[in-house]
């Protein structure tokens, strides 16, 4: 028995049909990105709804489908398919009204078991984060990863990628849900990250290998992220945005929705602050997420690894945390510019701060 036999013939056929129809669905939706209920339709109805004038042509193509050939190509691509009839399929996804029939996976398959047994958290957000958003996403990913919580995200630019990286650096298990075939790195610049996630965790998609990304498949991917996670944390999001769609799916499923508070003047905080206003759980650190998942104090957040700071450097460190430049740090701490720089060098050597490339400093996220 090959590994790809975790999916039955009917489910594989359905996924292939979806892949064939993917461009048609894009055309059918036009400028809209979501099609509520469309993915819940039966094979026949889906074909009728989306195929349009290509109905007969597509019917012929799907008629030529053979499960054996499909399994062969999956094996060649190194992709494992898991359908809803398999014991490996994550139960939490079943609650979706339009749950994906099959998950195509690349990576470590034992991740599916931990998704089934352990709570997972989705960390999502904008593709254009502020340095603050990046820092928080990295810190959450790393803290959750170190606490043994699976971190689900979408491999997109910005917050998604940063939370994956944080999770990897924290030694955790990352799960990336893609809007295209699971073997593809989308966006392409994340091919290294794609490989790292697959090596330590799992990359999955409801679309079979070889399928490209489509406008509608991003919100569709978001429903899978929300479905896999016990809790969805939005780090930074504009309004409207894809991250808010994920939060909406999570809310519809009755899962916890959390958001990181942002500056009220920042456009990238409009979405998150709006969520908080509507009753989302405010997240000010890893412990907030852990308390919400396991109950207050049940699982303590991993403590900082950096060495404790001496009293002379503390004021400088605090000023860096507040986002001050060298001059402002000097004013706050009562030091000359050259002394501030010496203090910064020491803080950097001790691992408390990192240089921002262009001459600035940031607090290293813990």
């Amino acid at each position, binding site marked *: 028995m090959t590994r790809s036999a975790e999916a039955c013939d009917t489910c594989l056929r359905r996924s292939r049909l979806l892949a064939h129809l993917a461009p048609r669905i894009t055309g059918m939706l036009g400028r809209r990105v979501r099609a509520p209920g469309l993915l819940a339709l039966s094979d026949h109805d889906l074909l009728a709804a989306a195929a349009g004038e290509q109905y007969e042509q597509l019917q012929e193509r799907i008629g030529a489908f053979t499960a054996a050939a499909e399994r062969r190509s999956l094996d060649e691509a190194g992709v494992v398919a898991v359908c809803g009839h398999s014991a490996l399929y994550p139960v939490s996804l079943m609650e979706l009204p339009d749950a994906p029939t099959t998950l195509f996976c690349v990576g470590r398959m034992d991740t599916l078991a931990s998704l089934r047994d352990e709570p997972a958290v989705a960390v999502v957000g904008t*593709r*254009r984060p*502020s*340095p603050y958003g990046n820092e928080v996403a990295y810190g959450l990913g790393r803290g959750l990863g170190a606490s043994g919580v699976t971190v689900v995200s979408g491999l997109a*630019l*910005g917050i998604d990628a940063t939370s994956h990286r944080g999770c990897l650096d924290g030694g955790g298990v990352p799960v990336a849900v893609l809007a295209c075939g699971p073997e593809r790195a989308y966006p392409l610049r994340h091919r290294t990250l794609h490989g790292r996630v697959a090596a330590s965790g799992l990359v999955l998609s409801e679309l079979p290998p070889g399928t490209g990304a489509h406008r509608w498949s991003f919100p569709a991917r978001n429903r899978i992220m929300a479905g896999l996670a016990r809790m969805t944390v939005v780090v930074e999001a504009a309004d409207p945005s894809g991250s808010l769609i994920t939060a909406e799916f999570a809310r519809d499923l009755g899962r916890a929705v959390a958001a990181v508070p942002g*500056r009220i*003047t*920042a*456009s990238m905080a409009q979405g998150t602050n709006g969520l908080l206003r509507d009753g989302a759980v405010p997240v000010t650190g890893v412990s907030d997420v852990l308390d919400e998942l396991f109950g207050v104090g049940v699982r303590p957040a991993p403590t900082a690894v950096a060495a404790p700071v001496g009293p002379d450097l503390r004021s400088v460190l605090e000023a860096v945390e507040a*986002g001050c*430049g*060298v*001059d*402002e740090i*000097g004013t706050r701490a009562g030091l*000359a*510019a*050259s002394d*501030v*720089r*010496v203090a*910064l*060098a*020491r803080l*950097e*050597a001790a*691992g408390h701060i990192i*240089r921002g*490339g*262009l*001459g*600035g400093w940031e607090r290293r996220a813990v």
Partner: protein
Amino acid sequence: MPSVLASVSTFALEGVRSHRVTVEVDVRRGLPAFTLVGLPDRAVRESRERVRAAVQNSRLDFPMKRLTVNLAPAHVRKAGPGFDLAIAVGLLAASGQVPCESLVSTAVSGELSLSGELRGVRGTLAAAMGAREAGCERMLVAHENASEAALVEGLRVIGAGDLHEIAVLLRGEGEPEQASDAGAPAEDRAGELDLRDVRGQDDAKRALEIAAAGGHNLLMVGPPGVGKTMLARRLPGILPAPGLDEALEITQMHSAAGLGSGALMRERPFRAPHHTISAQGLVGGGGLPRPGEVTLAHRGVLFLDELAEFSRMALDALRQPLEEGRVHIMRGQRALEFPANPVLVAACNRCPCGRGSERCRCSQADRDRYLRRLSLPLLDRLDLVCEVRAVPPLELAGAGPQGPSSAAVRKRVMAARRRQTKRLEGTTALCNGDMDGRLTRRRVSVDGDAVARLIAARESANLSGRGHDRVLRVARTIADLGGRARVHARDVEEALTYRLDGWEQLAA
């Protein structure tokens, strides 16, 4: 009747130096003709007409004979109107209107108008230097060039207003009026921009001081309008005043580009070319090679605002001059060399929109693309990077202490430079910024703690070998400013915060 031959020396500008051109004039009987040979360009060939009119309009005789003028050496192309006077004088000598002996060890240089008036030419200082080197004792130039030529010691410079005056002088009839240089202006730097006028920005001022003390190239990063240009303009004022040799060099570069005022330039130049400049404009070149901005900024400051907007070619062309302190230009069979050793100050934004981190809407891709535009080889030559932020409004309004004046900073800079001069005796380097890797490791003595800090930084901050040398050079300058004979751990620590490492990954 045998022909009469006269020869006159003049000095033609080539790059920023000059070479001797001997103008030979042959007058013989025959049909009246005026032939010019010896690779003259258009402007030189046209000088026949100017010379004819000038001679006739100066109450002198234009011989109606067969005239042949040769410009030697014959294989070098001659350009420009600077040969007019030499041709006219040669003609007068060959036709017996002035004695040939009067032209021995005399150099002449100048353009003629049709009325016989003498006009100035560019590059007179270089011509005068060439004349002295060639052993000439006196030099005849236009009035407006006289003070500039007189900067050269050991050369009798005589300024004249027109051709007639020259003829009278050469006959020994007139009383030659010897020109002197315009006189060095007193040590008056009142007109200069003072560092005291910049509010706040202590950190950037410190970076400027280090750049001035060690001759380090500096990159300032920050949004527009926070004072990067204002700070850069004050760098020449905290550099030590140029010595006589340096001042002559600076004047020579400007004179060769036709920018000189005739007086000795006692201030360090500040050049801020616009970012649309071509590679040629920046490093020099052209059919008749002219010095570029980097040469005009020699011994001064070259300021490149909006570094990312400069063309890639222009920035890459800067690499060699910044490494070697000179520009090499090949033209035909001749290789020219322009000195080019300024302190480079560059400024750029954090991202293409240039707004602060809070209001920036640039995507990561936009930022990466922006950074990629900065030329990596050039960044590799920058020793210091410094973030410049907006000054809080309260401080801007005048609250808070006033910083040190340029004079006070210059004093510290000069003390630091003296230490460097002593240490670098017998090497080609003038200051810490000029030291190469080998020299850095040989001449910079570091104490034990500092070595440990450097090793730790190499491991944790993935400091490259070249980055290591750069940090060490800057640390040396910081120690020089503090009057320390050896580099302490503190100096290394401060230097580490100015490093530009990690850009390779950032811009990759």
